């Protein structure tokens, strides 16, 4: 691992040259006029340059003090190594406590190859060995030897940076503190004259910053490191106590020491000026997308899924992770209660295969107990992991496990910082939060709800001898969203949302809903049958009527025929009668002139 970190490198580089205008964003805004500023030497340490507005005072000594094991030596060493590798400022490390071999070995674990740097004449290591028992004092002395030594080391590589770690050991090794004090004063003046940027480390003393009161001599810049334990967890903090001629962040900032060295979080300097994206990202659940105005969460927004135990918070988180990976995005999943394999197994049971994304490197699950470290350390770790992994989606599951005892304020401020950080990075964040059964549902223990953009509430609905899950949207800033409660079901192919039954009997879910639905179905069936029956009845009536009509018609026809037959006979009879009369007349010689009949009969 050879150090050059991309992030810090690109950032402080421009401010290296004497006009370090870059500042924590909160201060920057209005006062960014080009004022003459103290020349600064960038440390290259993540975050420290932001707090100090560009680095340590160039050409002046800086005191770094703190208790045992708080990271003084490391900070000093990183300052030197980064100076040598990134800012082309070679340095001299004068160690009073550790031999050069030990030092080389110790910092090798941080990826600093001191041997190589020494060979390339970028760094000189000098171990000052003082054994009190070997030394006898006879008369006045001075520390000219140290000056000569340091001077020749500086000259040998043209060093611009010097570290003296821990010069106070001289007090233990040499007699006559009065001479030492005078000589140290001279040393610091001499360092200033040489124009080297120096770090002097000092052990924390009782009531003073350092045991020997070095802060009296080194007064340009004082940084205090602290390593404290509360609630059995430790956290490291850094504070710039004083910085002559420059503004600086005055808070305590958490910092981390890990395999890449030191990183300081200038979190409290973040301002509320992140860009709000209008892009939407799918939740991974179709119905939920629909509920959120059809397209899901806003990119870069913060989503809170809260609910009582076993309501499926993690499942919603897993869906979101799965959907993001499907889009080819990177997802960082912080789990505080389950191990990665447990999460993957559990999600497999609802048909979400997270394993594949882990294999493809799109999903990274980081599982840590909250008690693993202090809040600040957690924050710093997350910061760092997010910076390294560069995810588009971050999931924290669950938040409330951080609450131990009464540290709510601490937890809240930590999440506020984390949230701000995620927002500035345009990372969509999904948090889950377990609400205790007795507590108020619409409230998070750590009170971050007001920071959240979209809040999904999952609740167990107890009715009809069973527990069912209901999902509703408590709020979703900046989008139209459904006001409906949906029944939330975990199936072997993921989460399903169903409409709940809303009727005169109220809201029904689960089997009650199913029963109700079945009842409705039956009622409908019966109604249908009735309608059919009526239709048939009508048909029958019509058929009957039609039959009757046909019969009548037939009867009528018969009568008609009969009638016309009678009429015909009648006529024939009449005719015969008339003929008979004529014949009779003829036979009786009737003189009457029955012309017509005659003519007619002819």
């Amino acid at each position, binding site marked *: 691992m050879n150090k050059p970190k991309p992030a810090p490198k690109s950032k402080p580089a421009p401010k290296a040259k004497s006009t370090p205008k870059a500042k924590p964003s909160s201060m920057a805004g209005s006062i960014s006029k080009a004022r003459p500023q103290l020349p600064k030497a960038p440390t290259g340490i993540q975050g420290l340059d932001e707090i100090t507005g560009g680095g340590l005072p160039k050409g002046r000594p800086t005191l770094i003090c703190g208790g045992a094991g708080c990271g003084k030596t490391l900070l000093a060493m990183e300052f030197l190594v980064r100076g040598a590798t990134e800012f082309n400022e070679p340095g001299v490390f004068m160690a009073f406590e550790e031999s050069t071999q030990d030092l080389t070995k110790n910092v090798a674990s941080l990826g600093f190859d001191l041997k190589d740097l020494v060979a390339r004449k970028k760094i000189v290591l000098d171990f000052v060995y*003082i054994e009190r028992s070997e*030394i006898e*004092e*006879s008369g006045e002395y001075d520390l*000219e*030897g140290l000056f000569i030594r340091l001077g020749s080391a500086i000259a040998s590589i043209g060093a611009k940076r010097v570290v003296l770690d821990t010069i106070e050991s001289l007090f233990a090794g040499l007699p006559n503190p009065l001479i030492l004090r005078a000589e140290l004063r001279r040393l610091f003046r001499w360092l200033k004259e040489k124009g080297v940027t120096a770090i002097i480390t000092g052990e924390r003393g009782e009531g003073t910053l350092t045991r020997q009161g070095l802060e009296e001599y080194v007064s340009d810049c004082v940084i205090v490191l602290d390593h404290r334990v509360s609630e059995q967890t430790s956290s490291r903090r850094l504070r710039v106590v004083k910085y002559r001629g420059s503004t600086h962040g005055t808070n305590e900032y958490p910092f981390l020491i890990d395999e890449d060295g030191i990183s300081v979080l200038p979190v409290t300097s973040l301002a509320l000026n992140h860009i709000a994206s209008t892009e939407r990202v799918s939740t991974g659940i179709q119905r939920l997308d629909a509920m959120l105005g059809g397209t899901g969460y806003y990119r870069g927004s913060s989503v809170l899924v809260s609910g009582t135990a076993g309501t499926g918070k993690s499942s919603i988180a897993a869906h979101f992770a799965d959907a993001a990976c499907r889009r080819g995005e990177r997802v960082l999943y912080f789990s505080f209660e389950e191990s990665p394999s447990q999460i993957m197994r559990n999600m497999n049971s609802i048909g979400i295969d997270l394993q594949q994304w882990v294999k493809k490197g799109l999903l990274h699950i980081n599982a840590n107990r909250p008690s693993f470290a202090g809040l600040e350390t957690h924050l710093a770790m997350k910061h760092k992991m997010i910076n390294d992994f560069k995810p588009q989606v971050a999931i924290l599951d669950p938040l409330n496990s951080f609450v131990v005892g009464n540290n709510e304020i601490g937890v809240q401020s930590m999440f506020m910082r984390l949230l701000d950080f995620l927002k500035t990075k345009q990372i969509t964040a999904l948090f889950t939060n377990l609400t205790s059964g007795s507590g108020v549902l619409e409230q998070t223990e750590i009170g971050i709800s007001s920071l959240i953009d979209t809040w999904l509430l999952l609740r167990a609905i107890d009715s009809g001898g069973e527990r069912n899950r209901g999902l509703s949207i408590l709020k979703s800033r900046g989008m139209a969203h459904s006001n409906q409660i949906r029944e939330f079901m975990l199936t072997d192919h993921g989460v399903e949302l169903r409409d709940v039954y809303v009727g005169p009997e109220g809201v029904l879910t689960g089997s009650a809903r199913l029963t109700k639905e079945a009842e409705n179905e039956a009622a409908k069936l019966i109604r249908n049958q009735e309608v059919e029956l009526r239709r048939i009845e009508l048909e029958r009536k019509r058929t009957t009527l039609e039959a009757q009509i046909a019969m009548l018609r037939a009867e009528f026809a018969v009568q008609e025929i009969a009638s016309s037959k009678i009429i015909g006979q009648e006529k024939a009879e009449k005719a015969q009668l008339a003929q008979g009369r004529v014949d009779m007349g003829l036979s009786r010689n009737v003189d009457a002139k029955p012309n017509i009949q005659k003519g007619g009969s002819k």
Partner: protein
Amino acid sequence: MKTSPARPAQPAEKTAQRKAASSRYILKLYIAGQSPKSVNAIANIKKICEENLLGRYELDVIDLYQQPQLAQGEQIIAVPTLIRKLPLPLRRIIGDMSNTERVLVGLDIQKAA
């Protein structure tokens, strides 16, 4: 450099016969230029050696301004520093050697008569 004969490195036991026979002293005085302390130290140590170690000592005076690299090699911090290379163990005396008593204790030498 010559090794110390017979006598093992041990703190002073005031037996005159042992010292007379064996010890040969090799001393190095590191100074920085011609500062008053340096000048005093040279004068003082020469006097002490002449009075107590006549004929059985070697004294080198080294100016660190001329050979600054020796400061690191010899672990010199304070100036002037007198290093007793032999007999072992290595001893250091810092200061302008004005306190003869302390120099003698430091060098583990019995005062002559």
